């Protein structure tokens, strides 16, 4: 009975989402690009790290659809393999941030009190503090590297989710079904995580989607400043960063346009999808 209700709700949401053209476009973009990243070895015969000095800086051709870079590496192969890492970085950071934010938000919203007051202030500081500066300082602490970057993004990006979850908990903990749970003697932890938390998940999902987009951009921005993932590893940020020299921009457009467009397109898709999700899942609209 409950399951049927749930699935009909999900169906309704799915219908709503399907009718949102932008969201569908976004979803298609993300799905196609993620699929391409996963299937990278099938889509290109080239190794993204294989140097071929004889074939440096070749314009696009049938052999190399997007040409080759300054070391004769296939640009398409690098983009496809780079997608794996960039998407993983964006998604993992968003998940990490959401996890921290959700846990803190649960406690903060459910128990209130001094913990809530302190955490609210702290989250305010994190929101207001320019993220790029925080990241710069943290990069100095933890150094460069994929895991460090994910860690840094996660600890700088939790405050939004925290505020969402906390606000939800605040309003939900006074709901009658929570009171009822308490009356039945159900434990606090169980109420928090089993009964209230599921009701806060839809805004969290939306914020994870949008955060993923933000972190992919942040990764490329950090690579631009030379503080992202070590340069030998292909990520979208590193690929475009390797092509920012002015002579490359003027003479070898295939080195910077494809990564630029790829980053923008993916982030665009994620944002469209996230907006669509919000329209569907957010009861306020």
């Amino acid at each position, binding site marked *: 009975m409950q399951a049927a209700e749930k699935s009909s709700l999900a169906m309704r949401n799915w219908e709503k989402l399907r009718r949102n053209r932008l969201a569908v476009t976004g979803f298609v973009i993300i799905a196609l690009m993620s699929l391409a990243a996963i299937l990278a070895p099938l889509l290109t015969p080239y190794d993204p*790290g*294989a*140097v071929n*000095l004889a074939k*440096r800086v070749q314009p696009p051709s049938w052999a190399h659809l997007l040409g080759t870079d*300054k*070391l004769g590496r296939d640009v398409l192969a690098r983009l496809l393999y780079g997608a794996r890492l960039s998407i993983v970085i964006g998604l993992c950071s968003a998940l990490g941030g959401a996890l921290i934010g959700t846990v803190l938000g649960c406690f903060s919203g459910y128990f209130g009190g001094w913990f809530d007051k302190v955490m609210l202030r702290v989250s305010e500081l994190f929101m207001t503090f320019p993220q790029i500066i925080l990241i710069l300082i943290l990069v100095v602490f933890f*150094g*460069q590297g994929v895991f460090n970057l994910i860690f840094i993004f996660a600890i700088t990006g939790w405050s939004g989710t925290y505020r969402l979850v906390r606000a939800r908990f605040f309003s939900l903990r006074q709901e009658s079904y929570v009171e009822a749970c308490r009356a039945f003697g159900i434990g606090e932890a169980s109420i928090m995580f089993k009964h209230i938390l599921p009701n806060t998940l839809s805004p969290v999902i939306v914020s994870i989607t949008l955060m993923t987009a933000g972190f992919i951009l942040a990764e490329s921005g950090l690579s631009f400043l*030379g503080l992202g993932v*070590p*340069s*030998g590893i292909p990520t979208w940020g590193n690929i475009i960063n*390797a092509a*920012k*020299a*002015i*002579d490359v921009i*003027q*003479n070898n457009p295939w080195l910077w346009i494809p990564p630029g467009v790829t980053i923008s397109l993916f982030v665009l898709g994620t944002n469209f999808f996230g907006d669509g999700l919000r329209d569907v899942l957010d009861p306020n609209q």
Partner: protein
Amino acid sequence: MNSMKKAWLGVLCVVFLVGLLAACSNDNSGSNVNSNAGVNNNGTETTGNEEQPSEGASDGILRTGQGPADKFSAAWADYGGLFKTQVFRRLLMLDEQLQPVHYDLATAYTMSDDEKTYTFTLRDDVKWHDGEPFTPEDVKWSLAMAVQSAQINAVFSGAFGKIVGADALKAGEADELSGVTIDGNTLTIELTEPVGVFLLTMAQWPPYPKHLLESEDPATLHLASFWEKPIGNGPYMLTEVVPNNYAMLELYPDYYGTAPKVEKIMLQTISEDQLVTKAQAGELDYMPVMDLNQATEIVKSPDYEANPVDLLYVRFLMPNLVGQNATTDGNDKIADLRIRQALLHAIDRESLAGMLYPDQAEVLQTLVPTALPEYNEEAVVYDYNPEKAKQLLEEAGFDFNQTIRLQYYYTDQQTVDLIDTIKFFWEEIGVKVEASLMQGNLLELIYTKRDYDFLYAGLSAMAFEEAYGFFHSDGIGVQVVGASPDKWDPLVDELRRTSDPDDRMDVINRLQAMEAEFLTRMPLFSMKQYVIVNKSNLETAGIYGNEWTNYDRKLEEWSMK
């Protein structure tokens, strides 16, 4: 109630606006202060109005880089470049063969037969830009400061450390250099032992004005507020400084030599990656460029020409022979000479130089570029030969399961590309490589932590003393390549003492032979530098040298079109 809130809101808005206005007006007063600091505020205003329509060209201003950050850098560590050589002068000047024989602040010099006593007769018509006369006392005081200075080029400090009384001064036992004496306009410098590069040093090292810097601590001399708008004694003086933006050099009317024809030089604060766009916008007339790609891009404009310059600038792989733990017997991975030979044989340096740095890099066989007369043609040459490399590795019993750690500290894209390629070459012969960027305290990381097997490094030296002093057991290099006093020390000491060109050539030859034999450094390339000139604006004398040294550009013949 509501009205009170409105009042508060109003107050808040006013406060905010006032704050912003304060910020903006602060900004304006800031730039006013800067132009007031220049000689004539009115002058800049009128020229400013005149030049507004013409975009950069034909206003008689020579535009170059090397502009100030918050202040200028001092002139004893980095001593070259248009700004530091035109604002500050030296006792001697190089001739076209780069021999320190021309006079500048000095009108004559003598060297004693034992090469331990030098006398310089100084000009008496030189004035600092604030009108004070330049005297031998300035030189004597500057020498004493240089001996105690923390930020000074190694060749300078090496030479001045040999002045009689330098040790006592450093130890705090004396107040001045007893080896430097003044008699009228004659300055006598006594050394404890011959210094081969002493005259070269005097052609590169500029004295500072004593009367303006006397109260500074020698250790922080280079940080003095003097450097916000330095006072020198050259043909050009600073008239306007806008920190982080630009500074103007204008002719100094009381200059003792021939006055240049170019009346104003604009030093713009620009970073390497902006050179090309600046040039394309016609806002650069003269600029040294390290990257050939940039130079190529710039000369696509018919206005520009790029002039290649040979200089002692080398890039190499430094093996860590000591290993991470100095108490063990060294770095087993690469201790065997055959392994280092193999790794060098495995790198196709010719095609690297040709492909990555076309026309810019020359393959290097020793630290001495092959184009220089000092190059020893008999030193061992390691050509590209992967088969031989594999064979050498087999012979040495190399363990192919271990990973060679290759580090680098340059962050430019070409370096990253190069490292990726070297990694590729080594992997071709079956060696596992892990490449990473060295970040943080380079000194500690290179010499104390030593968490690498090879380090990609560079050296730009004004003299071979700098290049080979590294291996001397009093040098810092022993922490990485290990001490071998019996091999390197006698030769390096000999080089330090020798000033006769032929004798020096001989010592340098022997040093190269030793270097190539033991591969305590694996040479990669020597690199050229380019000087780009906007021909449609500027006519130079056609002499281009190592831009980071003091050489005679014959600036008085330059003119703007």
